[in-house]
């Protein structure tokens, strides 16, 4: 019998975005079942449904064979589901024990018997080699200790099913290993573990089964014996569908971008790009392939001027632009299509016309509304953007059309360098083809393009050269030929190839 069964779970978000499409998932007691997938594949959505944070539109949840109705995290906990969140939810000024019983109802109505709580936490901590003092204040703890408190909290609640949502994102390799040992012990004590990650190595280290999720659908499930980094990487990012896009051979000209020994930190203040170098020439598309979270975002943002460079140099036509302002880079002709079009690339309540106008090469003091509207009309036509009119707030546009607005704006800067991050996420096939053709057109007109894609096929379809990124470094280069996919898969998993 399964400890947990999720049957035909479907979830649609407002705006008709299908986040989960008939997903089936199960978990046996004493097993680690990993959910693997790119950002936005639906892993976290699925777990949030199980933990009562979202409500699914269709499908059912069975725990130990019985259908359950989980309406909130509290009801998830009573059903034995616990979640170790990616972001900690601890009160810094409280002790470990106080944090653990926070919000629990079992502790007695008026008086809290803290002594028993402390004893129990000590037992659990010893059992899993966690070495946590229940009386320590949380603000004194390190990040990995805080995570242990979160885990102890779940164990204290006597969860049978424990969800770990990207637990190693904040840990060093050594800390990760001790976490895996704790997970192994929990497994041996009969708990069912759901592990979420997109790091292949650790997935193979910890899992009994791996289910790969992509665009809200299950790609497949592999058992322990068959786990293979290369295969998993391909399942995560592969697409069954190939475009036939007419691409003439590249005709590279002068060197446009030169990145030398770049070092950049991520939002958590951890090094994400670690001494990376690359160059791109006029009329050339350099595709970067890699599993998400290996420094792609930080690389793109530092070239666009949105992220501080710790070390190294960025040169544009031999001009040092390291840590210069965004404005200056716009003026030089550096366009940037960020991966999150809603969070960064657009202003949701501003109109399509205004969004086409927010990034300008030359700042004008006085606005010419008429010209702005006339221009927008032209661009809406040119890029076949579907909108009621140019005055419609952009948030009412579909993802694909929103992306077209962003692309139109950036291409109209007549840029010499275009940085494109995940340009086709959430787009349908026509929109994808449009994006690819626009990129190739821009290249043919002499632009240098840095394409950071989450999708192997995307890289292979559009790029002239492919660089593989792993843990903030370039692992190697390949020609974009289908026969090279296996090689790329290995390098994406961090295996260095001999020349």
């Amino acid at each position, binding site marked *: 019998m399964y400890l947990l069964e999720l049957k035909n779970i479907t979830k649609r978000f*407002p705006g008709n975005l299908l986040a989960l499409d008939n997903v089936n998932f199960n978990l046996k007691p004493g097993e680690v079942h990993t959910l693997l997938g790119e950002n936005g594949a639906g892993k976290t959505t699925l777990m949030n449904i199980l933990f009562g944070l979202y*409500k*699914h*539109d*269709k499908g059912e949840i069975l725990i130990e064979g019985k259908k359950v*109705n989980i*309406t909130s995290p509290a009801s998830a906990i009573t059903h034995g589901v616990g979640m170790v969140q990616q972001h900690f939810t601890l009160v810094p000024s409280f002790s470990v024990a106080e944090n653990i019983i926070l919000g629990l109802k079992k502790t007695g109505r008026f008086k809290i018997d803290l002594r028993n709580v402390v004893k129990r936490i000590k037992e659990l901590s010893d059992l899993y080699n966690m070495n946590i003092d229940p009386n320590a204040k949380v603000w004194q703890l390190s990040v990995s200790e805080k995570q242990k408190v979160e885990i102890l909290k779940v164990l204290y609640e006597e969860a049978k099913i424990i969800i770990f949502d990207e637990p190693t994102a904040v840990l060093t390799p050594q800390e990760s290993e001790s976490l895996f040992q704790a997970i192994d012990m929990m497994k041996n004590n009969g708990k069912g573990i759901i592990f979420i990650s997109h790091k292949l190595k650790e997935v193979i280290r910890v899992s009994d089964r791996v289910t790969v999720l992509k665009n809200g659908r299950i790609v497949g499930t592999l058992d322990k014996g068959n786990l293979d980094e290369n295969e998993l990487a391909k399942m995560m990012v592969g697409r069954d569908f190939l475009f036939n896009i007419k691409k003439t051979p590249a005709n590279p000209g002068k060197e446009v971008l030169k990145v030398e020994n770049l070092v950049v930190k991520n939002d958590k203040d951890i090094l994400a790009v670690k001494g990376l170098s690359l160059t791109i020439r006029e009329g050339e598309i350099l595709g970067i392939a890699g599993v998400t979270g290996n420094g792609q975002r930080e690389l793109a943002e530092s070239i*666009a*001027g*949105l992220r501080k460079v710790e070390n190294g140099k960025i040169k544009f036509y031999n001009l040092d632009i390291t840590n210069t*302002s*965004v*404005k200056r*880079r*716009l003026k030089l002709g550096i366009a*940037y299509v*960020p991966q999150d079009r809603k*969070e*960064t*690339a*657009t*202003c*949701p*309540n*501003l109109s399509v016309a*205004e969004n086409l*106008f*927010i*990034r*300008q090469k030359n*700042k*004008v*003091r*006085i*606005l010419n*509304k008429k010209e702005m509207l006339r221009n927008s009309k032209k661009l809406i036509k040119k890029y076949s953007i579907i909108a009621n009119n140019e005055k419609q707030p952009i948030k*009412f546009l579909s993802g694909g059309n929103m992306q077209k607005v962003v692309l139109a704006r950036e291409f109209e800067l007549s840029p010499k360098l275009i940085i494109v991050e995940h340009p086709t996420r959430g787009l349908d096939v026509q929109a994808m083809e449009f994006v690819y053709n626009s990129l190739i057109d821009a290249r043919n007109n002499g632009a240098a393009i840095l394409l950071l894609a989450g999708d192997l096929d995307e890289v292979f379809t559009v790029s002239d050269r492919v660089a593989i990124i792993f843990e903030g470094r370039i692992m190697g280069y390949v020609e974009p030929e289908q026969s090279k996919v296996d090689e790329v898969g290995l390098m994406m998993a961090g295996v260095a190839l001999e020349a």
Partner: protein
Amino acid sequence: MLHLKLKIEKRLERFKCENFLISVVSLIISLVIMGIFIWINTGNFADVVETYKELFTWPFFPELGLVDTILKMIPLALIALGLLVVFKMKVWNIGAEGQLYLGAMATTWGALFLFKNMSNSISMITLLLIFGAIAGALWALIPAILKAFLKLDEIVTTLMLNYIAVYWLNYLIYGPWKDPKGFNFPLTAVFPKNSWLPELGDTGIHIGIIITFILVFVTYFIMYKTHLGFELKIIGDNPKAARYSGISIEKNLIIAMIFSGALAGLAGSIQVLGVQHRLQHGFSTGYGYTAIIVAWLARLNPFSAVIVAFLFGGLLVGGEQLQIVMRFPISMISALQGLILFSLLASEAIFKYRIKITKNDPIKIGGEFNGNT
């Protein structure tokens, strides 16, 4: 079996005049609630009718309170114009009251000490108004710098600076600036005649109203016609997109706060030069706070702000009248203002959603509604 289900969902589309409708509906709601209060308080429904009759006629008729209403409209409108610029970028300047005080104090300093012997009235008034505006701007610059460079919350700092401004003014009028011939009242000597704002004919309305109307157009121009206004709009809607577009949030924050403070300071200056002709205790009846409601009810539109300021001026004048006629405490009017703001915020949230009644589909999701037939 038929299951009916109530579903609350976000409305995606907005209908025409929605903003206007929200403002009007929330006004009506707050008047109804206030009416119930008055009814309970006096136990007589006729009093409610009488109250509203007084409230809606007295302030708006020329022979009655109209001049007073306009005199109160001027500071309210000026402050609101400044506020809507900062509110546009979602910076909450609660410190207009303090900035108003600083403007009044700087003007008083100029009128009584620095320029008291100036013979040219026009240059003296101009100088004093600029003085007031600069003082208000500097007072607003403090929280702006604290926010831009130390990320201190502007709501707290602007609010705290209000208290400092109030006590500073009290110190001056109870201490060094007290009028020696003032029978020990907390007020300064009367300003020299040269510094008084001229009246428009013999209407009793000073030229501050012209300054206000000019600034309405200036504000409109900044907000809708300049790149600065566009940048403020971008920052207000999505600060991340602003950064991505190369817009300096810090620079715009400081510019907007200076503008906002300058207008509040100017309002303080105009108030003492045009109405009281001296600095006295309680010279402002909380204009800086009321203007927050004005800016918000006007939906951050400069033209609407003048209209709303006029109505709120009327509310203040009507409130004073109610003290006399109905013997209501002045706090009644503050309560009404508060009610209006609350219903405004509530209606805004409620208007974002709609209730949908659907027949339950065969697959039961959760168990939020168990209807039996």
